[in-house]
Each structure stands twice: as C-alpha cells, then as structure tokens.
C-alpha cells in the first residue's frame, strides 16, 4: 500500500497546476465562464499539448494513463482553479470512443483537434439510463436518432456527440452524430461553464454499439470520479480562503478566527474534506475493478454531502462578502453545490449504494 503519486503523475499534476494558475487566474475565469462560448476556446490545444487528454485513456487505447488516479489528478487541478473548459464531456466521450475501438477519434481528441461530448440524460431520465426515450431507428445501413437530450456537458463546444438512444431491440445503444446536425441550445450554468440541450429530429447517426448500457455506465462513473476529484480541489481552495478570511476579518475588536464557534465549524469542514479526499482515492483505485459502481457511488454521495457543507459554511462564515459575485469564494461555493447535481446527486448515489448493498 502506497499513497504517493508516481513521478509521471506528479509531473502532469505539477505542470497542469502551473499552467492553470498562470492561464486561468480567477478574475479571468469569472469573465469567460459565464459568457458564450463559456470557456477559453484558444486554450484547448495547449491543454492537449500538456498531455491532459492523453492522460485520460490507457496506453493500449492510445493514451498514456487512463487509471482512476490519472483522472483524479487532472480534475483536482481543474477544481482548484474552477477551470471551465469542457473536459468532463471529453473525458466521457474519449473513454467511450476508446472502448469501442475508434482509434482515429481517440487520437484526434488527444491531439486536441477534435472535441466531443456525451449526450445521455433526458428531462425524465436524469439519474439513470433506464428511462431513456430517445430512439434510434435503422433503415438498411443507416441509423437516425429522434428525441431530446438534456444537460449535455460540453455539448456547446463539441464537434461530435455520442448519444445514448434506445434501439429497436429495446437496448441502449451508443451513436455518434455530427454536432451541427442537431438542434443545439447552448447556455451557461450558474456555476460557470457551458452545457447544451440537444434536439434530435431524424438526425443521421453512426452506430458504435447496439448494446452499450454497461459501457456507458462505466464512462459515467469515470465522469463521476472526475467530479469528485474536482470537488476535492475546489474544497481545499475554498477552505483556505475561508481560513484566511477568518484570520483577517475583525469584529468586536478581534479577528473572527478567535471565536471558538467559528473555529470548531472550520474544523468540522476540514474533517469532511479529509473524508472526501479519502473516498475519492478509494473510488480512483476501484474505477477499473468490479467494485467500480459501488465505490464511485459511495464517493459521489459523500462528495455531495461534503461539498454542500463546505459551500454553505464557507459563504456563511464569510458573511456578506461571500454573497458577492466579485469575490472568488462565491464561485467556488456555487461550483461545489452544483457538482452534486451532475451525473446523479447524493441521493441518487445513495440509492445505488442501497441497491448494490442489498444485492
């Protein structure tokens, strides 16, 4: 047992941290994350050059990483700077392209010359794939898709979309479409970054798999792990900001950090953050094992709880300043809150744990 990062990972993590600190100072991040195109499109190639995308898939699939710990280090750094680049959608898409042997696409995405996103969820199927209504119809060799996909992360900045749709056989298949063939409504999210609604009206598609349910679940779990790691990075920073604020802010003639009630509350945050870090490590170690679903569900549940606590307590302990757009802490708090809602919230994950526990 060993909790040290390998040298390779430490290098990626260090260089990514330096790059993001340099290129995404928080004022810049706040400026770009809420206005179209909701990220800094020019930077994508540089991130690819740093090897970030290659780190997300394994060597035999064309990358040079792909383990849970690789995903975690990339997204933890993203969390530290609230980087709004559409990495989540590309992570999930990349892993699906890789799983179905689309090596050209994998190479292009790793090189930064193509971007993709995964379109799974729908207004009445936000938490699992069982209620997917988008349908795939086959006519000879040609497939077309009809339906509506919701909250497609990175869908605003993708060349191709991977769409989960119900096949005539009743299975969940995975299809690739050109983004421009769909009706795409892009928007900013309240915590920054973009997503899209995707309307599909007989859109012509390429079938990657007619029975992709379990593979899609694995890609979603990779995404959930990424969100956990992102949250850990954001929590660390927000906790530090809160601590600094408490030490600097004076009330009743002394720093409010000297008030025991606030001290104990910050201690409780710190404990939950350690727990969040631990469960994320646990999930990262399990993401390629049979224990994947349980470990990831556990992690995202705990992250959801810890993130909410950290966000709410940080804002409360900051007082008014924490309520302002101008103060970076408010954006960390929003991100931590809204991460929970992505790819199934803490109660959805708890339900998975309960199901796997009683099985």
């Amino acid at each position, binding site marked *: 047992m060993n909790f040290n990062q390998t040298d390779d990972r430490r290098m990626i993590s260090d260089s990514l941290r330096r790059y993001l600190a340099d290129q995404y100072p928080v004022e810049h991040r706040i400026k770009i994350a809420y206005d179209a195109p909701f990220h800094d499109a020019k930077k994508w190639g540089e991130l690819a050059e740093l090897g970030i995308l290659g780190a997300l898939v394994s060597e035999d699939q064309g990358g040079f990483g792909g383990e849970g710990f690789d995903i975690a280090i990339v997204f933890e750094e993203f969390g530290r700077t609230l980087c709004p680049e559409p990495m989540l959608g590309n992570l999930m898409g990349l892993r699906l392209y890789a799983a179905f042997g689309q090596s050209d696409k994998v190479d292009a995405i790793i090189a930064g010359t193509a971007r993709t996103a995964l379109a799974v969820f729908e207004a009445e199927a936000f938490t699992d794939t069982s209620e997917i209504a988008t349908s795939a119809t086959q006519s000879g060799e040609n497939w077309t898709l009809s339906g509506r996909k919701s909250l497609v992360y990175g869908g605003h900045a993708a060349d191709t979309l991977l769409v989960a749709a119900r096949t005539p056989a009743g299975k969940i298949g995975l299809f690739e479409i050109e983004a421009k063939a769909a009706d795409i409504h892009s928007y900013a999210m309240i915590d920054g970054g973009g997503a899209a609604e995707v309307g599909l009206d007989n859109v012509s598609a390429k079938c990657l798999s007619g029975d992709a349910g379990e593979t899609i679940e694995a890609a979603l779990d990779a995404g959930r792990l990424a969100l956990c790691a992102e949250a850990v990075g954001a929590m660390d920073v927000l906790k530090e900001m809160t601590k600094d604020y408490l030490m600097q802010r004076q009330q009743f003639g002394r720093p409010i950090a000297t008030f025991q009630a606030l001290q104990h509350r910050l201690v409780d945050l710190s404990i939950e953050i350690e727990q969040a870090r631990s469960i994320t490590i646990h999930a990262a170690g399990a993401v390629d094992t049979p224990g994947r679903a349980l470990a990831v569900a556990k992690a995202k549940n705990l992250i959801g709880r810890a993130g909410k606590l950290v966000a709410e307590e940080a804002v409360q302990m900051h007082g008014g300043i924490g309520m*302002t757009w101008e103060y970076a802490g408010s954006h960390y708090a929003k991100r931590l809150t809204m991460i929970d809602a992505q790819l199934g919230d803490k109660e959805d994950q708890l339900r998975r744990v309960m199901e796997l526990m009683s099985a």
Partner: protein
Amino acid sequence: MDLNFTPEEDAFRAEVRSFLKDNLSEELATKVRNGEELGKADIESWHATLQSRNWLAATWPVEYGGPGWNAVQRHIFDEECCLANAPRIVPFGLGMLGPVLIKFGTEKQKADILPRILDGSDWWCQGYSEPGAGSDLASLKTRAIREGDDYIINGQKTWTTLGQYADKIFCLVRTSTEGKRQEGISFVLVDIKTPGIEVRPIKLIEGGYEVNEVFFSDVRVPVSNLVGVENEGWTIAKFLLTHERTGIAGVGASTQALHELKALARKLKRRGKPLIEDPLFAARIAEAEIDLEALRMTNLRVLVDASGGAASNTIASMLKIKGTVIRQNLDDLARRALGPAAAPFPMEALAGNLAVAPPEAAASAASYFNNRKLSIFGGSNEIQRNIIAKDIFGA
C-alpha cells in the same frame, strides 16, 4: 388554550383573500411565483394597489394612515399575500423609517415624510452596514461633522438593498468619537441626489442585482434632517432591531415555498414515477413540513403574546434562526428536485424552444444561492445565537 382564529379573524382573512383575488394580476403573481426579478414599476404599482385599500403600511397606527392592525391581523395579511404570490412590500420606508419617525420624529418630519412614503413619492433605502461593520454595527465609521446648520458626511455604506431605485436614504452616521462605540451615532435622512453621493451596484452570487454600495464624499445635509437626538441614534437602531420582529420567521413565505415544492415534486418524474413517491425525497419534504408546522406555532405563540406586549428578543432571534434555516432548506429541496436542470441561468433555461426547466422552477438554483443571504443579512445567525446566549447565560 384555544388554537382557533376568532370569527373576526377568519372574516378578515376572507376579506384579504378576496381583495388579492380581485386586485393582484395573474401576470404579477406569476412573476413572483417564478422568482423573476421585479422592476421598480412592478413594486410601485403593487404598493399603490394596497394603498388604495389603506393596507400598505401594515404597522402604522390609523392616525398616520395605517390600517391599525394588531399582530395577528398582520400575520394573516402576510400569510395571504404570500399564498397569493403577491410581491413583498419593500420595507425601508413602510416598515422601518415610518415607525421610527412615528416614535422619534418631529411633527414636521412626520407631516412632511410619512404621506410621501404612503403615496410612493419617496422610495427610501437603508444606510446601515459598512464594509467593516456588518454584524458589528456599532463599529461604523461614516462620519458626519457639524458645520453650521449642516452635517458634512464622508464614508461608505454597503448592502443597501434596492438603493438603485431610491430617492432617499436613512443612515446611521458617527457624529462623535467620544465615549463607548454605541455612543456618538446619529440617525440622519439624506436625499440621494445630494452632490457627493454615488451608488454603485453589487452583483450577488447568483448574478442578480439588488444591493449597492453608497459612497459619501463631503455630502452636505441640513441638521434638520436629524431624527431624534444627536449622538443617540443607537436607541433608534435598537428600536428597529426589536420592532415588529414577528414577521421575521417568514412563515408565510416558507408556506408558499412548501406548496410550490410539493407541486413540483408531483410534476417531475424520476425513474418513471413522480418525485414525491421517492421515499428519500418525500421524507425530506415531510421533515421540512414538520419543522415549518412547529415554526408556525412558535410564531403564533409570539404573535398572540405580542398583541398584548412585546416579543422577547430571544424568541425573535430564535424565529430568525429557525425561519431562515427552514426557508433555506426548502430552497435547497426545490433546487434538488430539478436535478441537473437547476444548473442553467434562469433566463437561459427558458430561452429558445428547448426550455430546460419548468418556468416556475427555472430560478430555483438562483433563489437557493440568493437566499443564503437570509442567514447573513439583518444580523447573521451567529449574532442571533450570541443574543440568545447572552439571555440564557446572563453574561
């Protein structure tokens, strides 16, 4: 013990309900229900509607143009307004300055100012907090130095709600630096168009604009704008802090939020079934409903007491803490009911022909974030706990 409203109170409720039904437009109620930002015109027109019935200044005695209601009537009125999705009355002139003038103002001040609050001629805002003096109000630094018949004011106020619409601002300013911190503070009325005043917007966490910074540079104000006694403004500040705090629990607003939440949970589906049939989610709604039921009763206990005497500071602080916790929990549940669809900015969620969320819930994340203010502004919940602790431990 009798938990029933009197027949008179029931009749009053019916009267209010019927008035709201006839006078609150569907359009305005929908805006309120959907959590959309109201414009100045929306608010002014609603104030005028209420004033047409003499119901605008709920806490004012009849002689000054109020309806002369007791605490239970005010509670009923508030509850009905919330249930009907009426806009909240902007309190700075009506709920704060009015009562202050009625208690501390000169006859001339009352005669000049009160009617203009009622008829909407003056929109007042509040200049209390400062960057270094939020919950610790007594440490305020904005100075007013006497020069002949004027004060010259320099300093900065912040968190001034709806200051962007205001004609006037009432301020706590420091007129003396001698004695204890609470001494030497005065309560002064200022025309916001006076040279030297600048109002700058503060954008809040969710992206909305409702509070401001107000800067004072050599702002000249006649001494006749002083309310009460110079250097004794702290008395007025304390009066306002303890005045009419029975509405502080926000029972009406939370009741309406609970209604909306349940409607939403019946409408939205998860795994093929209405969300309200999900035991984990339903359990959280049920707990919120139980907490609110208890708060409603706590509030009524205080109200009925306050109809005769004054509510204790301690119980008011309890109502503030629990009321905000419950409201914030309801907001949290509404946001979570939507799942990931809560994420887009409200306007973007509804734009185009691919709306992400139902209109009445599109602002749920924005409301959740905005309402984090409830436990911070107006004396943070930490300050409220200090107040209660002082009472319990007598220290």
